[in-house]
């Protein structure tokens, strides 16, 4: 008797919950191709242009019914694009793309967002580290998800033995650096640096910039699967067109752009997101992008990155940069539409 009631109760609960599963009525299919964009991280204004384009319907105008899926610490964008789980990806960077291709993943990059290295190494101005050589024997934390290569490259170019530097994995929080337990911390110009500046005075900080030491690692790469690139070139072009438009308009209306991102994640800190947007755009409009447009692919910078990765055994064999990075789709869009 009681068993039956119990089972009925469970069944009711299950049915109620299952009812949540039924998908909403399908949007009218006006020749709209369903696609998804997988970001490399949680929603933030680093990706504002895409959210702006989505909100303003630019993708719809290109015939794309786009869903933006955030990334996160346990997701690898290259993997999700390669297996077809997502159509487009904004992935880690030139390093992760080439490493993925080296491992046989059938992906190709169709655009590069950040033209210069987004990482910067921060230390206290009044601390023991005054030059790159001073890194020796000090506690340096970095992320082993790409930033480490930048660090290795900088040390290598200056002839510093990286084994002499106490390189440790970086914590989630910048607190150890703020407290003085760490000598040098890795930050991105648009994210952690703002956090640090919020807790220490900007004047107290000293930066080690990769480009000053001959290292450039373009990051935030737009990727698609080889399949998509071959079979749906219009889709890729349309996506790029709408995204570039989204970014240009987002920068023309920064407050609105921040509003749109905050709508997806209301618990974000507004001031932080505004600073992030400005810095992210700076990275996107540096280097060749100024003259050749947003998301431009710079074969020179990428070739240097490839050689560096090969030398450091990240790649097991040469990766043909001209095959890994395909700018056909970008070039199909007129130049003036691509300029920032």
């Amino acid at each position, binding site marked *: 008797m009681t068993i039956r009631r119990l089972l009925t109760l469970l069944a009711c609960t299950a049915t109620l919950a299952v009812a949540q599963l039924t998908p909403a009525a399908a949007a009218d299919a006006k020749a709209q191709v369903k696609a998804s964009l997988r970001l490399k991280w949680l929603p933030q204004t680093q990706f504002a242009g895409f959210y702006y384009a989505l909100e303003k319907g630019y993708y719809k105008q290109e015939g794309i019914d786009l869903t933006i899926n955030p990334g996160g610490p*346990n997701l690898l964008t*290259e993997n999700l694009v390669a297996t077809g789980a997502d159509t487009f990806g904004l992935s880690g960077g030139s390093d*992760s793309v080439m490493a993925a291709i080296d491992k*046989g993943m059938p992906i190709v990059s169709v655009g590069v967002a950040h033209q210069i290295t987004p990482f910067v190494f921060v230390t206290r101005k009044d601390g023991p580290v005054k030059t790159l050589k001073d890194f020796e024997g000090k506690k340096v934390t970095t992320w082993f998800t790409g930033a480490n290569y930048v660090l290795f490259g900088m040390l290598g170019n200056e002839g510093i033995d990286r084994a002499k530097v106490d390189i440790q994995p970086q*914590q989630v929080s910048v607190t150890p650096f703020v407290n003085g337990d760490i000598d040098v911390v890795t930050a991105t110009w648009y994210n952690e640096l703002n956090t640090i500046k919020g807790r220490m005075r900007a004047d107290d900080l000293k930066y080690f910039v990769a480009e000053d030491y001959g290292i450039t690692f373009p990051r935030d790469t737009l990727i698609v699967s080889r399949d998509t690139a071959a079979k749906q070139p219009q889709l890729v072009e349309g996506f790029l067109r709408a995204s570039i438009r989204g970014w240009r308009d987002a920068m023309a209306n920064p407050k609105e752009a921040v509003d749109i991102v905050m709508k997806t994640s209301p618990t974000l800190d507004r001031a932080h997101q505004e600073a992030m947007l400005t810095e992210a755009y700076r990275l996107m409009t540096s280097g060749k992008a100024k003259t050749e447009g947003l998301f431009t692919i710079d074969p020179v910078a990428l070739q240097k990155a490839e050689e560096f990765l090969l030398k450091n055994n990240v790649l097991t064999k040469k990766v043909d940069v001209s095959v890994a990075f395909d700018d056909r789709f970008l070039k199909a869009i007129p130049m003036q539409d691509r300029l920032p």
Partner: protein
Amino acid sequence: MSARSHASRRTLVNGAIGIVGVIILWEAAARLLDLPVYVLPSVSRILAAIVAQHQLLWNAALMTMWEAIAGFFAGSAVGIVLAIALTMMPRARRVLLPMATALNSVPVVAYAPLILLWFGIGPTSKIVMVAIAVGFTVFLHALSGLDRVDRRAVDLMRSFGASPAAIIWRLRVPAAIPLTAAGMRVSTVRAMIVAIVTEMLGATGGLGWTIFQAVLQIDFVQVWAAIFVASAISLVFFGGVNMLEKRYVFWK
């Protein structure tokens, strides 16, 4: 005696059939369907990787095992002590039990970011996390076990003038051991998993950290290798506690 060993041998054989069956299916699927490595590598490749990387995996395993075992015993001890204490103070129990259950209802992983902020990314934070996870389970099981005593036995002892403490020690605690042991048994695997999950949010070593690194280095064979090793260790841990339980809790 021989009937017993015959039965236990048959159990092992049946268990082996199941496991071997799955392994064969897996290997066949990976090979016949020619699955790419990043979807599902074949068992043989994973085993080969384990052998090739055995030093790295062993070091990582040692760290995770240390975190899991230390946290397991710390948590179990605290859980048992708390359960006995609360049983001895029924009034405190009525107030504290709902609060403890409320605290337990926050899934352990929700505390991980906080614990990592407080204790850093070293092994200490993982031990704390495991202790919390194991402690609550053991606490609840022990509490339930201490309650499972026949009312009449309690009344009988009382009528003989036994003090509350004596009732606890002589009657309730022995009666609670099976359920407590069950709680500890269930917690062995959780201990490893909590340690690994916490490591994936921030660590300097261990199997969870290895998995995290391997995902980012797009080395999925390594991911599976670490998972296999973690599984194996959990099973050994589980089997060990199981064996101890069988030896010392010979009545059920």
